[in-house]
């Protein structure tokens, strides 16, 4: 679905990603793990066009979309859920959901909001509240709900389960599986809840210092040395 070739990207003059090559397969879940600051979020942002690309290609449906502006990507049915600042704090929950369906027509939006609210019934009681007053977790599932409203083919999720209770985190993982299995969505997932994420994924990538340190199936990654190093701590002050 998406093919990344020799991607070099960063913020202004600061290069973060170095020669990244990756393949996000259609209808599969691809999970990216890695230490903090290794460039996972930057990778997603770059795919969506929110950073500076120095060189490389991003092939989507046989087209290089490296230079397509983000709001147009949203229209190409690519959805992206940022890690931080992922809701509009001054808008109400309802307005947030509505605006998530900005590129859809009215009826479609209604329908999608319906779907999102069924997945996150907790949102129903707080529709009129400003998103800025929500608890951390509530905010997170509002953001997820917004991703659902978008009706995308490709879903890029940056730590969707952070700050969620174990129960809700599990709900999210199940939804992700469901979206792949029932709707055929292509999903690119970044998670620090790495073990669980890889358990449900097809493919796995590991980033270290802005480079791809591992590429393979999720299972391979789970059993790899590098993964163990990353998930068990050893250092101390």
């Amino acid at each position, binding site marked *: 679905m998406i093919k990344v070739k020799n991607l070099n990207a960063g913020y202004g003059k600061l290069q973060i990603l170095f020669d990244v090559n990756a393949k996000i397969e259609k209808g599969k879940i691809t999970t990216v793990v890695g230490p903090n600051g290794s460039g996972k979020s930057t990778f997603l942002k770059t795919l969506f066009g929110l950073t500076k690309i120095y060189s490389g290609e991003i092939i989507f449906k046989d087209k290089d979309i490296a230079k397509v502006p983000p709001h147009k990507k949203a229209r190409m049915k690519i*959805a992206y859920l940022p890690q931080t600042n992922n809701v509009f704090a001054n808008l109400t929950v309802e307005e947030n959901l509505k605006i998530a369906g900005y590129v859809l027509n009215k009826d479609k939006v209604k329908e999608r909001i319906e779907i999102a609210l069924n997945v996150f019934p907790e949102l129903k009681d707080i529709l009129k509240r400003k998103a800025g007053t929500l608890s951390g977790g509530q905010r997170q599932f509002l953001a997820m709900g917004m991703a659902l409203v978008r009706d995308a083919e490709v879903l890029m999720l940056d730590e969707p389960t952070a700050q969620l209770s174990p129960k809700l985190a599990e709900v999210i993982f199940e939804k992700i599986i469901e979206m792949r299995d029932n709707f055929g969505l292509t999903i690119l997932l970044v998670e620090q809840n790495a073990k669980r994420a890889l358990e449900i994924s097809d493919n796995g990538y590991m980033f270290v210092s802005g480079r791809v340190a591992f590429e393979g199936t999720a299972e391979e990654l789970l059993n790899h040395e590098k993964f163990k190093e990353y998930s068990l701590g050893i250092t101390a002050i």
Partner: protein
Amino acid sequence: MILEGAIIYSNLLVLLALGLTLTYITTNVPNFAQGSYAIVGSYVALTMLKLFDISPYLSLPVLFVVGAVVGLVTYLALKPLIKRGASVEILMIATLAIDLILLGVIGAYSEILSAIVGSTQAKFVFANLDFSLFGFKGILFVSTFVIILLLIGLYLLLYKTKFGIALRASMENPSLAQTVGIDVEKTRLFSWILSGALAGIAGGLLPFMQEIVPATGGLIIISIFAASIVGGLRHISGALIGGYIIGVSESLITYYLASAFGTGFLVYGKVISLIIMIITLLVTPYGITGVDWKKVKKMLSTS
């Protein structure tokens, strides 16, 4: 009489404050050039009057368009800065620079116009051109009508349409707005155009009340800001409430103070309105529309 004047004055402040609030809500830029936008409108209205003999009321649509162009040009001037992620303060200072440019343009234009018309056009009013209805001044009706129309329109636009939500969304978090497919560029452009257009209209009506000189924009900007802020910068109805608070305290309250404590007080209209604004803000730190009424109700019911 005194009430009529106060209402008209407040209406005009509301109009000016509306534009300010609008760009603030949608682009986060406190626009110091808002006053001068209006004055551009005033001079265009004057031109229409002097050269084509068109009453300022009738030229309101033209002013709407001219104001929109001024808004557009300002936005284009600010765009490189917004693109480079300039801070709010930088943008605000940039609008100051634009205000200065507008002052220069207006001044130069007033000279050119004077040369064409054959008399000094640096200073003018339309008050004498006004009609009167039921013993009230025409401007009272026109300004009230325009405000009602604009408020309803803006309210529907900002709070009831998808595009309105998009406007507010793109101000708050442009990059997130892009991820949902909003063309942030377009929304910004639109709100500057609209804000300029509102100022253009205000500019056509202002001379019915007060004298216009090239620097008038700079003189009234404080009252505009005061109105916009005391009502609450985050909501368009703030401009309405704020305009009335400032307008009424500048005329009505000042008048009553003067009749109680001596006519010397009459010059302190601006001071009194500023003080009332400060007090209002100290009581309601986020402006009147920022008050949490539920909380107030609870407080009242418990005490």
